[in-house]
């Protein structure tokens, strides 16, 4: 299997799905001739032309809504937001029309809303955000955040083929830093299923996105202290894989939830509630959350480094949990 980057995996998925299905088209800002701000759509314009790879004006609201109308008429739109931060300008048609449409009208709306997501690159308050909780709180949307090239390709292909609107966030910190073996052919990774990224017995670290490599690094460090960690990569944030969450909680009895997004009303709060409601008697310690603080994402490297969780924070929290 060839080793490619996370970004190349995304690009491959887009390429292969557009080739396989001529109802698939992609639109967004600077995605055509330029190939996207991060080059995720590189080469698509040359292969599929302006008709299927559409450089739009700056109008996230209008093109988010356009996607719903096109999907209703039998197309499979992929919308690229230049940064996950900018999805707020296209929020309305996603959460009001697209998310509720099947419940109200019974028509499927196969749309993928893609966006480079998260921090770690010192890009400041408006190019570093993790807005997944907004969408997880909205009924009718699926929210997917892959953590490695293999899953990125397989999950994106599944998202494109899914009959529902899917918010697909791509940790841009991993775009070029993560390489992995990825089959050249088309394949799918099921939405809604978490992955046991690392099996262990003492502590469960439940996480997703760019925090998965941090969790794995922490787990490796912790083996030196004879602490065995299980790392659960959620992959799909909504709907959550409750079975996998409960299985690991019951297995280890000590749960650490790790995410890059802010703490209050974040995904971690929901995971903690699911465990408390369904597996309380299995717990040997209070559930612990390692997350960003409740502040905007700061720019200066010493500030962002302090804002964004890393493997050292995880090691520290895991030890507290282990010795509880």
């Amino acid at each position, binding site marked *: 299997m060839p080793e490619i980057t996370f970004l190349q995996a995304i690009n491959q998925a887009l390429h292969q799905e557009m080739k396989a299905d001529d109802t698939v088209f992609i639109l967004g800002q600077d995605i055509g001739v330029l190939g996207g701000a991060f080059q995720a759509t590189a080469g698509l314009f040359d292969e599929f032309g302006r008709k299927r790879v559409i450089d739009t004006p700056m109008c996230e609201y209008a093109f988010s*809504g356009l996607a719903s109308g096109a999907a209703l008429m039998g197309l499979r739109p992929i919308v690229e937001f230049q940064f996950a931060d900018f999805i707020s300008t296209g929020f309305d*048609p996603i959460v009001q029309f697209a998310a509720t449409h099947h419940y109200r009208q019974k028509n499927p709306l196969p749309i993928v809303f893609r966006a480079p997501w998260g921090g770690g690159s010192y890009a400041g308050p408006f190019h570093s955000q993790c807005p997944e909780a907004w969408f997880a709180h909205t009924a009718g949307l699926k929210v997917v955040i892959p953590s490695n090239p293999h899953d990125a390709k397989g999950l994106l292909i599944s998202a494109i083929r899914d009959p529902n609107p899917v918010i697909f966030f791509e940790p841009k910190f991993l775009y070029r830093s993560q390489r992995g073996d990825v089959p050249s052919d088309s394949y799918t990774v099921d939405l809604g299923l978490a992955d046991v990224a690392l099996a262990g017995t003492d502590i469960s670290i439940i996480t997703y996105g760019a925090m998965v490599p941090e969790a794995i690094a922490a787990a490796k460090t912790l083996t030196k202290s004879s602490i065995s960690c299980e790392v659960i990569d959620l992959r799909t944030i909504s709907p959550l894989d409750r079975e996998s969450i409960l299985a690991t909680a019951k297995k280890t009895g000590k749960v650490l939830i790790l995410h890059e997004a802010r703490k209050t009303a974040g995904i971690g709060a929901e995971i903690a509630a699911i465990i408390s409601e369904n597996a309380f008697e299995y717990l040997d310690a209070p559930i612990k959350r390692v997350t960003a603080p409740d502040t905007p994402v700061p720019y200066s490297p010493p500030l962002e480094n302090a804002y964004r969780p890393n493997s050292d924070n995880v090691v520290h929290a895991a030890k507290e949990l282990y010795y509880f």
Partner: protein
Amino acid sequence: MFESDKTDHIKLLYWMMLTRAVDDRSVSLAKLGKIPGTIFSQKGHEAISVGAACALSEIDVIAPMHRDLGAYLVRGMTPGRIFSQAMARVTSPSQGRDVNTHGMGDIELGIIGYVSHLPQLMTVALGAAFSFQYRNEPRVALTFTGDGASSEGAFSESLNLAAVLKLPIVFILEDNQYAYSTPSKYQYAITDLVARATAFGLPGVTVAGNNVLDVQTASTEAIDRARRGDGPTLIKANTMRMEGHALHDSAKYVPTDLLNKWREKDPIVNYKSLLYEKELLDEQTEKSLIKQIDKEISAGVLWAEKSPFPDPATLTEGVYA
């Protein structure tokens, strides 16, 4: 204007009368406590929704709003289904999940159900138009919005994107002078909203919104233009909202003389007089129209009232496809 055959004129009259009859009966049903939600009056808007919808072909698609009941009817939404939607029954287009004209879509009939956030459906209609262009189909999307919604950013984004992509779409802006209690002078500072079309590089036309023939003619031209591949048009139709925003609203904030002035311009009364004057309508035809409409309304109400409410056990079904 009177070159087309007699039937078309009678049809226009029939659809406007049916619209008003459904509207009036909906209000009575609400007063009888049979409608859990509310009703948005159609009075003053009948000529716009009917005139525009009658200019479309069967293959086209509409994305209407809450004052376009006439367009739903013309597209084939039956009075029974409209009543069942307001009465929150499971047989309605939204299976009891959305309020009156909201979410009253039916893709088979070329109707996209709207959400309350006007003018959001302008952007959704862009997508329908885009799909027609994408597949080289000679189809057109037509969407309605209002003077209040024209102040939203999505209105400007939609006109701009439609013009840039040269989409086969027609925008109908129904200026009824009030957005809930806010009059036009507090809604926009330009003389005529149609100027917004020119600002984005598409043609804009102003029509008398209470004259069904004017609306139909302007719509036909805009639809033909879109079908030819020449891009979008904005039609601004002037009218007056003759009742409150919804049932609860007595609209005391609207000056009485303004309403009286517009009462003289009733789209149905005036069109009927015109047809009598041109000898295109006689008393017998009018009576038979009224009889037919009464029959349709009664049958519709009966069917809706017999329709069951949704089963609470289905509450969580269908969130995902």
